């Protein structure tokens, strides 16, 4: 086994996914198969190869520090399920 049910539970919690009992079993099996497939890559010798962070061979895309118009409070809040005054409203967050 490359992944345990406990790890799947942990990842589900981090992703805020509420998985049913049966789903946990299914996903553990599927993820294990995926990891087994990806494991094939370990057969390659990657000594001396710099880890790839990006698939496109590009670097340094910049923007000048010049203000551009924002979209406005009402547009910003247009898709919000709930708002109060000019704020998004979310369930109470206790600090």
């Amino acid at each position, binding site marked *: 086994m490359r992944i345990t049910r406990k790890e799947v539970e942990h990842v589900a919690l981090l992703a805020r996914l509420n998985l049913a009992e049966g789903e946990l079993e299914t996903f553990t099996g599927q993820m294990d198969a995926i990891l087994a497939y990806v494991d094939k890559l370990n057969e390659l010798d990657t000594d001396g190869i710099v880890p790839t962070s990006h698939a496109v061979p590009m670097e*340094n895309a910049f923007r000048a520090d010049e*203000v551009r118009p924002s*979209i406005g409070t009402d547009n*910003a809040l247009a898709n919000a399920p*709930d708002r109060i005054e000019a*704020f*998004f409203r*979310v369930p109470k967050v206790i*600090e």
Partner: protein
Amino acid sequence: MKYQPVIGLEVHVQLKTNTKIFCGCSTQFGSEPNSQTCPVCLGLPGALPVLNEKVVDYAIRAGLATPCQIAPRSVFARKNYFYPDLPKGYQISQYELPICEHGHLDIEVDGVGKRIGITRIHMEEDAGKLVHSDIPGLGSGSGVDLNRACTPLLEIVSEPDIRTADEAVAYLKKLHQIVVYLGICDGNMEEGSFRCDANVSVMPVGSDKFGTRTETKNVNSFRFVKQAIEHEIERQIEVIEEGGKIVQETRLFDPDSGTTRSMRGKEDAHDYRYFPDPDLVPLVISQDWVEATRQGMPELPEVKLARYQSELGLSLYDAEVLTATRPLAAYYEGGLAAGAQPKAAANWVMGEVTRGLNDNGLEIADCPVAPALLAELLALIDKGTISNKIAKTVFDEMWQNGGNPADIVAAKGLVQVSDTGEIEKIIDEIMAANMGQVEEFRGGKEKVFGFFVGQVMRASKGKANPGVVNDLLLAKLKG
């Protein structure tokens, strides 16, 4: 048992750019909630971030000033967690390849110098702001304002080299002075432009194995940092002495009680699953870019401090006062550039100028007397045209109504009288009118000398050259 505290600091420096780190929205403080937002900083699907070049410039400056190595290649990474102030579900930060590493800062506490290592400096975006009260009709919810989301930050991480709260404060003050000098941060701690998280642990004295640490978040004044660290050290020692164990956790400083308390609920998410952000291409910084940035940097406070002492001959104290802020040092140097003598200019800037600013609640940048005019005033003293005392009158006039010192001296007839004949005449009159005191002086009561000086100066309306008055008066009184 004796305990040795071990402290490391993470400082978040908000950069003084016009726009956010990955979009063109304004970073102005205090605007209407959510008015400075766009698809990028709202985290709308499909929106793509583009890096603000100035943020990189500023990060290089910070790196050079805390002599770090500037990475020729660095990468942005996603730090994944859920919180309502983080619209994308991840914060764009740097992880494995930060822009600066391996620097240090030299501090001094009670005359003892110490070098504090800087592990790394990386660029990242700030989160939004949560509001829990003061919104009419908020009810049992929290308000989210995303104006601050995507504001550029530098996170500056120290090595765990700090051993006392005083060292921590000295380190922070020095770092604060540097970033403000560099012009990359406004330094406003109340508005959160410079904030600190303190990692604290304790271990038995003599041990080389660090204890479990706690992280106290967002302490936003130097005084609070000292309180928070001292309290945390005490608390941890108490827990250990009572046979307990320190839990690795995030704690919040409460300024009202001066204590820290556990922030439960943020603990389950400490698995950030960093990975390179595919939306942002790698950042490659050439040696030319680094050198060009170095050329454009102002003289750092530490270098200035040393130069004021060695080149200008100022005392350590004077040099510290004058280099405390960059605008004050610029004012002082403006005076020198206009020909003022270093010591005299130092005295005037720290004396009359500072007093005037304090009395009127002004900043040095708003000083009504330009440094070049102060230099002209000092030149008049040097030439003996006016006395130091009269110069203060002229200075007040310049402060109130502007104008140049030579004109004021001429218009008000304040030119110092050094002509011995004229002064002798005054002295004779005063002595004639105060024979009683003359006798007293001659009878050995030398204290009356001051009375005569005062009378002569008054009769000359303060214009008599004090040196000449002293000499002549003494000669005449001794008869």
